[in-house]
């Protein structure tokens, strides 16, 4: 390895500590120490001493020296301080000075391109606009301030008009921000985005980020974390261009150059080919291969065009993406038809309820499921959800009529049917539908999400999501009708509460899902959404009580399973316990296992012991079995 024999060591105050090390270097190089100010005052005067500069300065002074080096054809070897991470990363250097000195004195100088802007040269990167969480923050800020700033940028994310020219193209689009660089350096994210660029190919690269919603930006951020250097496809909402020139025509966009200098657009960037000779690590040269005849690149399919950009630049980005007008129109027309009443709907509603009623009486899950497949309730509910979201009064009105009529048909049919059928005891299928809990609300919410999701995607529109809706609605309706027919109000109340819970849960979930899928960037009809939410809040209370009841029963069973009682030396095992709340009183049905019969006094003692663990007054109904 041969080394440069003469060099200027240009330093500022902070780096003066390295003077001795440079002077006594073991590579036989004669180094002349030059203070930065002396050099900048008269850069040509040192040309006779040496043509190679060992540069160890702050970022600001490096920038100044770089300008002079290009003008007066000095070559540069960088000697960054260990704290100067940007420079170390940019030229793949080490944090150890002696290793960097060896690289900086190698007689293997190569020319690199620099980005020229207003007669100054830049070697790191240029940023325009906002790219939250990717752009560099001020280093002096604390972690908290950085997080706060990033969060603020994130929430106020907006697309701006960007009109710019490359060497052979004029583009009018919108983006939140862009970055220009001519080599991959810095964080792994920036490296991934600029992976195909080189400082020796005669082109510079531009990355434009133009998300259509905050959610899409989050998706972009998450995707670039696993965006490997082997990936061919760019992350969604990112565009990539390569050119010798980028002329930004739009005005008043903030520009930050090399994390150092702030300007604003309009501004023009041109590539100064083979601007300066430098020394860098072998790794740097491998990452920046020399290429000739590199073509212009333009991957801009993710960019909104001149017409589209209007809707993005009006306000801050919505949290959810906005569905395309075409997709929205198609779905809207389908749902408007779905909201209208027709005879097929009424017939299917009638038939499915009759089938469900028979299935409930016969205690046959299979027949009940068969009835679900027939039930057509999904369509008006989904239309109702869209009407709520978009504030389409006509669609809302039609959908509500259709649902109400369907409910009327179902209740009448099942009530009539139950009057005709013998008065048998309530089957387990019926009992299961008269005690709704918060868990049922969970079923309704997920059915609603499924309904809106399938309806909004053409390819899965004919899937069985409708059955999920029907599962939640038709059996409770049929049970409520049976309650009416038999004159058993508690059956009607329980089942109708379940139906109503599911109806409201599905509607609300579908409304939110539609918004999430971008069918409206805001709820247009806040009144109807508030009404639905209020209803949901009201029905949540009885559901909560019912859920609490289940928890109480479960806990009692758990406790009594472990508890034993000793009364007058008689050991009592509880085999089974069932709790019924009646006002302030708990009635507990117990099945006991014991050796000897308990007399009245002993039973009273047992009751007292059980009462000790409860704050409510209890009554016991006891059955006994004996151990022999």
């Amino acid at each position, binding site marked *: 390895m041969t080394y440069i024999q003469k060099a200027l060591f240009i330093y500022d105050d902070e780096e003066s500590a390295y003077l001795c090390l440079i002077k006594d270097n073991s590579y036989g190089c004669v180094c002349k120490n030059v203070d930065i100010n002396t050099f900048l005052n008269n850069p040509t005067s040192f040309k006779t001493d040496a043509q190679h500069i060992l540069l160890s300065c702050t970022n600001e002074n490096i920038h100044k020296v770089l300008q002079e080096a290009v003008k007066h054809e000095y070559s540069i070897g960088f000697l960054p301080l260990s704290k100067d991470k940007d420079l170390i990363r940019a030229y793949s250097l080490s944090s150890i000075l002696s290793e960097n000195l060896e690289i900086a004195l190698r007689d293997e100088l190569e020319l690199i391109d620099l980005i020229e802007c207003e007669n100054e040269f830049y070697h790191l990167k240029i940023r325009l606009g906002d790219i939250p969480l990717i752009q560099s923050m001020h280093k002096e800020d604390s972690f908290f301030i950085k997080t706060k700033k990033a969060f603020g940028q994130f929430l106020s994310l907006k697309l701006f008009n960007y009109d710019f020219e490359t060497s052979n193209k004029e583009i009018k689009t919108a983006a939140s921000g862009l970055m220009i660089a001519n080599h991959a350096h810095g964080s792994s994210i920036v490296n991934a985005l600029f992976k195909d660029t080189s400082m020796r190919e005669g082109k510079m690269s531009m990355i434009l980020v133009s998300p259509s919603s905050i959610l899409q930006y989050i998706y972009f951020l998450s995707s670039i974390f696993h965006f490997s250097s082997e990936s061919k496809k760019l992350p969604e909402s990112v565009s990539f261009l390569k050119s010798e020139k980028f002329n930004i025509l739009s005005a008043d966009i903030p520009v930050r150059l090399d994390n150092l200098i702030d300007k604003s657009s309009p501004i023009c960037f041109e590539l100064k080919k083979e601007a300066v000779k430098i020394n860098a690590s072998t790794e740097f040269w491998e990452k920046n291969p020399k290429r000739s005849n590199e073509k212009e690149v333009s991957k801009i399919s993710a960019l909104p065009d001149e017409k589209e950009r209007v809707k993005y630049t009006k306000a801050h980005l919505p949290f959810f993406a906005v569905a395309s007008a075409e997709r929205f129109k198609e779905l809207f027309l389908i749902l408007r038809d779905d909201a209208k009443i027709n005879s097929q709907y009424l017939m299917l509603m009638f038939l499915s309820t009759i089938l469900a009623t028979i299935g409930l009486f016969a205690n046959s899950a299979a027949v009940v499921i068969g009835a679900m497949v027939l039930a057509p309730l999904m369509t008006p509910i989904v239309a109702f959800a869209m009407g709520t979201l978009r504030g389409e009064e006509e669609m809302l009105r039609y959908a509500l009529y259709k649902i109400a009529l369907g409910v009327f048909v179902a209740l009448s049919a099942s009530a009539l049917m139950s009057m005709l059928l013998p008065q048998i005891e309530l089957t387990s299928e019926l009992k299961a539908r008269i005690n709704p809990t918060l868990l049922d609300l969970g079923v309704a919410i997920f059915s609603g999400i499924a309904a809106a999701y399938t309806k909004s995607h053409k390819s899965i529109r004919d899937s069985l999501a409708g059955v999920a809706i029907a599962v939640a609605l038709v059996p409770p309706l049929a049970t409520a009708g049976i309650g009416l027919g038999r004159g058993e109000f508690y059956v009607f109340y329980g089942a109708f509460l379940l139906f109503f819970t599911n109806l409201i849960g599905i509607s609300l979930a579908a409304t939110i899902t539609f918004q999430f899928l971008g069918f409206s960037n805001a709820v247009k009809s806040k009144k109807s959404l508030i009404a639905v939410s209020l209803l949901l809040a009201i029905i949540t209370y009885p559901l909560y009580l019912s859920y609490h009841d289940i928890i109480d029963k479960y806990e009692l069973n758990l406790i009594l399973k*472990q*508890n*034993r009682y000793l009364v007058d030396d008689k*050991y009592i*095992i509880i085999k089974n316990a069932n709790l019924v709340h009646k006002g302030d009183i708990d009635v507990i049905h117990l099945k006991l296992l014991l*050796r000897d019969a308990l007399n009245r006094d002993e039973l009273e003692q047992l009751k007292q*012991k059980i009462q*000790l663990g409860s704050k409510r007054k209890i009554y016991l109904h006891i059955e006994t079995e004996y151990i022999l």
Partner: protein
Amino acid sequence: MKTVLMSLFIFFLFMGCNENTQEVQASGKKVHIGLIFTDNDSLMHKRLKVFKVFQKQWGRLDNGDELVLHVVSAKKDALSCFNNLLKEEKMSAVISFLDSTLMLDLKQSIEKNKVPVMSIIATHSKVNEIKYVSRICLNNPWQASVAAAYIRDELFISNINIIRDERNDFSLELSDLFEERYKKMGGRVVSVFSVKGLENDPQNFIKKMNENKIDALFLTINVQKTKELIKLLHKLNHKVTILTHDGLLSAFKTKFPEEAYLLDNIFVIDNYADDVRLSTKARILQKYKLDKKGFFDSYNGLSYDSWSLLRAALNRCKNYSGECVNNYMRNASRVEGVVEVFSMKEGNALRAVYVNKIKDSKMKIRVKVY
């Protein structure tokens, strides 16, 4: 609107903290409480530390009077130690860590001085005959009945041997009561062995024990003898179901912490279990880390319950007269204990007894008997 919501949130957030942070204004008056240990109690310091914590946390009555502890350690003569304690100050109550034999020695003095005594570990049934004693732990008749019923009706065991220590009142009473209850339930006590046999000729002891087919052993012997017996059974690869008495695991872990694994798979009757959930108030104690793994062990639990009962009694009695405090302690209703609410009936705690199975040196609940 935002402010209202925020205020409500803060209100609800701190609403539940009242009990923990409530400060009672000091009245300046003192209520004297005696605390008596035996000097061979290796856990005395640990137990005393627990009471100091109670004093720090709940050391004032509702009227602001302060509870002051007077601690004595009985050497040979528990009676004179007890009498000396009573001479120090006018004691409103005494908490006792004396065993059944020593407690019975105090009978006359307790009744003469009419000082309410809270017994924490004495389980002998005669202790209850002292009119001024309240017992917070389980008693032998109750323990014997639970043990017999569990073995008979839950483990379905018909033939059993009992091993007891004839020199120990507790062991004798518990064994006799167990035998009586177990036979009444149709079980067969094949033999009752004295632990002396184990001391004299261990091999022969095991041989005799194996002469008749048995399904289980009921042990009422101390930790030392329990350890020797189990080691011998392990050595001979003799597998048998074992049920033993309260306090065994705690004492075993103190004396032989390295060999506590020997007790694995043994059934044990106790006042608590390791997998119980502490009451909300008692959970405050976990921060004191009295034990390596937090607050809980059986003795700490009983100590907490006794403190809780004592405070409840003192809060209800003007001038803290012995008669009043004793009456309340012996018949208190719904006192918040370390695990759950308990009541007292004629000096006996009405509370659950746990049948636990030891696993990894911890007592895991099998059943809880009320």
